[in-house]
């Protein structure tokens, strides 16, 4: 088990290094930050000096090594554009993104699971067919379109909910939360709905498939034969047995949601990490872009590693297989 742990951790570290390397290769195509930093009247000499001070003239390997050495110590430098410590910038934005993702996840479970059960139980009813069709639309509509439609309906036409922003927030230590103020909760509704549309349909389809499988199982028939009410069989016994994959999927999807929140955050001007990243791209703010990519990939890698380790712990058979194959979910 210890050998497996070491192997998985080493694996994760290698993935992170590769991400950093890829990020650095990509940055070369983003353009020159110095051109964005100086004003119209700066001379060529000023530009050259600034580039030198930022270390942009150093070789690729030097820049990469310096970045990795500092990043390991949690130092991502300071933002070219905002002139603030990048870690502080990201730390300030993380609660906004995390709350959005959390609420979107809760919505996707609360809405997706009952819908999944309904479509499985009333398999060929009209309602189930409509829901199935709706779920296809939900999967295929890009989330910025959903966001803009929601804004048009609920902000412009009805005037019920704010079109952008996070409302008022309350600070609890370094964590800022919008959940404790009425305007903060109102502001959360549209962005989290738009972020969860895809997730809702995913959960619904998964639950439906699992339910169809489970409902055919023998113990369901026995329960019915024993005279247990049908609703109780469906919603308690059958559903419980379907939830394991749903929980796994939801856990794994959190990384995805954090990454995809970028689009939602741009549409709703949600002051989270994604918005920070988009702006960093526009201004070629390399320290912010690098830190964002590293942190998001760290979340992915950490979730995957945790899931692998949990599986291995639960199921000893996986330990050997995983160790031999060098990690199943790397």
């Amino acid at each position: 088990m210890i050998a497996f742990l070491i192997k998985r951790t080493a694996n994760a570290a290698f993935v992170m290094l590769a991400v950093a390397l890829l990020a650095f290769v990509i940055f070369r195509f983003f353009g020159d930050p110095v051109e964005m930093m100086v004003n119209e009247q700066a001379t060529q000499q000023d530009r050259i000096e600034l580039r030198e001070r930022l270390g942009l003239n150093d070789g690729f390997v030097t820049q990469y090594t310096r970045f990795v050495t500092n990043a390991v110590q949690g130092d991502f430098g300071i933002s070219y554009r905002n002139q603030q410590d990048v870690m502080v910038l990201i730390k300030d934005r993380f609660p906004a993104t995390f709350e959005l993702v959390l609420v979107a996840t809760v919505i996707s479970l609360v809405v997706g699971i009952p819908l999944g059960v309904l479509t499985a139980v009333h398999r060929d009813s009209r309602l189930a067919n409509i829901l199935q069709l709706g779920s296809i639309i939900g999967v295929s509509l890009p989330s910025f379109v959903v966001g803009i439609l929601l804004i048009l309906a609920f902000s412009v036409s009805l005037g019920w909910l704010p079109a952008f922003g996070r409302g008022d927030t309350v600070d609890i230590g370094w964590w800022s939360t919008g959940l404790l103020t009425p305007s903060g909760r109102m502001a959360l509704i549209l962005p989290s709905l738009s972020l969860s549309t895809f997730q809702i349909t995913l959960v619904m389809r998964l639950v439906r498939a699992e339910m169809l499988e489970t409902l055919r199982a023998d113990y369901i028939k026995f329960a019915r034969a024993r005279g247990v009410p049908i609703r109780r069989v469906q919603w308690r016994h059958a559903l419980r047995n379907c939830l394991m994959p749903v929980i796994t999927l939801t856990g794994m999807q959190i990384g995805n949601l954090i990454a995809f929140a970028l689009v939602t955050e741009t549409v709703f001007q949600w002051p989270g990490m994604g918005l920070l990243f988009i702006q960093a791209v526009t201004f070629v703010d390399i320290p912010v872009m690098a830190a964002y990519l590293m942190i998001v990939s760290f979340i992915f890698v950490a979730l995957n590693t945790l899931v692998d380790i949990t599986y291995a712990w639960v199921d000893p058979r996986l330990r050997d297989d995983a160790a031999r194959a060098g990690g199943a979910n790397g």
Partner: protein
Amino acid sequence: MKTRNLLLISAALAGLSGAAQAENVLTWGANRDIGSLDPYSYGDSFTINVLNHVYEGLVRYDKDLKIEPALAESWEILEDNITWRFHLREGVTFHNGNPFTAEDVVASLTRVSDETSPLKGNLPAYVSSEVVDDLTVDVTLNGTYPLLLNDLTNIHIFDNEWMTENNALKPTDIGAGTEGYATYNANGTGPFVVESRQPDAKTVFVVNPDWWDEPQHNLDRIELTPVTSAATRVAALLSGEINFTNDAPVQDLPRLAAAPNVKVLEGVDLRTVMIGFPFRETLTTGEANPFKDRNVREALYRAIDLDLIHQRVMRGKSRIAGATIAPEIPGYVEALDDLPGFDPDAARNLLAEAGVPEGLEFEFNCLSDGLVNEEQFCQAIASMWTRIGLSPKLDVAPRAVQSPKRTNGATDVYTLGWATLPLLDSYSPLLQIFHSKDGNAGVFNWGDWSYPEVDALIDAAGSELDLTARLNLQTQALQIVKDEMIMIPLHQQPMAWAVTENVADMPLFSDNKPRLWFAMVDSDS
């Protein structure tokens, strides 16, 4: 963290008291956030524009964009012609209560011209400054230079004592990797005080009751909330969540104009859109460069149907230009605006006479995030050039990608928009675009041309203290630029702001900078 909590609490309290008194609030939905509270931190004119509500310069632009006294009441040039003496306004205080004195001016000029300051180019002629007495400052320049006042409109004055206390005498140096106090805090003399700031979410300014000037606005509070997505910005305006935006998207103007609660303010920007040519020996393809020939440049000029671009691409909202500066800019005369006329046949003849091979390939460099409808007018122009037998290769990408190619001469033909900011004088394009590359001069001379007679006129203007004589020299230089067709002017681009109906007065400035100290809102809202 503690200070931030305090700020939030005070913001909440201010919000409560505001509800009781029916404050006049203007919610400004900009297309982006300011980078920092430090105007000297980043060469970004939007940040400087917004922070001008908090910080002021020695002089400022009035409602007609003419220079008027601000923190300096008067000034004179001493006998050596290179020292300017400024007499400062008495009784001005900073937001923290400190009095404004000559020390503050010297410290601020030192800070902005520090070698790590990205804005030192904004004071090109500055050498040193000296305190004469509490309310008098001498500024020494590197030669006779007529445009110091224009430069000073954008140099914000900080409080020396405040900067010393907070170790902010030098601008933030990103290379050193340390943060600066002025990034998070502001202390100016201006009409508004920064109350709180949450980056990317909201920056709140409240009126400064102790402002030295008679307010011409009736605002109590400005909330600057960036809304990056254009569709969301329009929605927020329609739903009344914001009541002013300085960037109303062109494609949504009809919809905004039709809405009962929104007013659209349209105008023509000072920014002149131009096309530049390479003057190097060869093109990027390695072929000989035909654009060094004036007649070839004329052929490309005459191949462009400016009316069609004005009607179709710019939807009739641009102003067709023959001059490289807008009519409002000093140095403009009407003769500069003459057009050669659209004539593709003549263009083809000119190309043939110059011996340009049929199907000549060259790169045409445009920005995807630059000027208004840039991608569309670039496509239109590329097809017009194709029609006279050339093969332009259109290269469209974001500014960050294109800028290095342009400055390194790694492209051929390119677009450039120039609004003469912050000088608002024709000296600005002459020095920075049309002068030969030489230190401060010709930084935007991307084509690498050199016209000694133009340089001589610009250099003479740069040390001519008499206004009429100087503008005369500049007009002459602009005429040569025009006759030689160094660059082709296309148009001044349109600009559009929008306000909700409760904004009673919002003067539109042709430099596209909101100045909310002239804004009025209806009190009953």
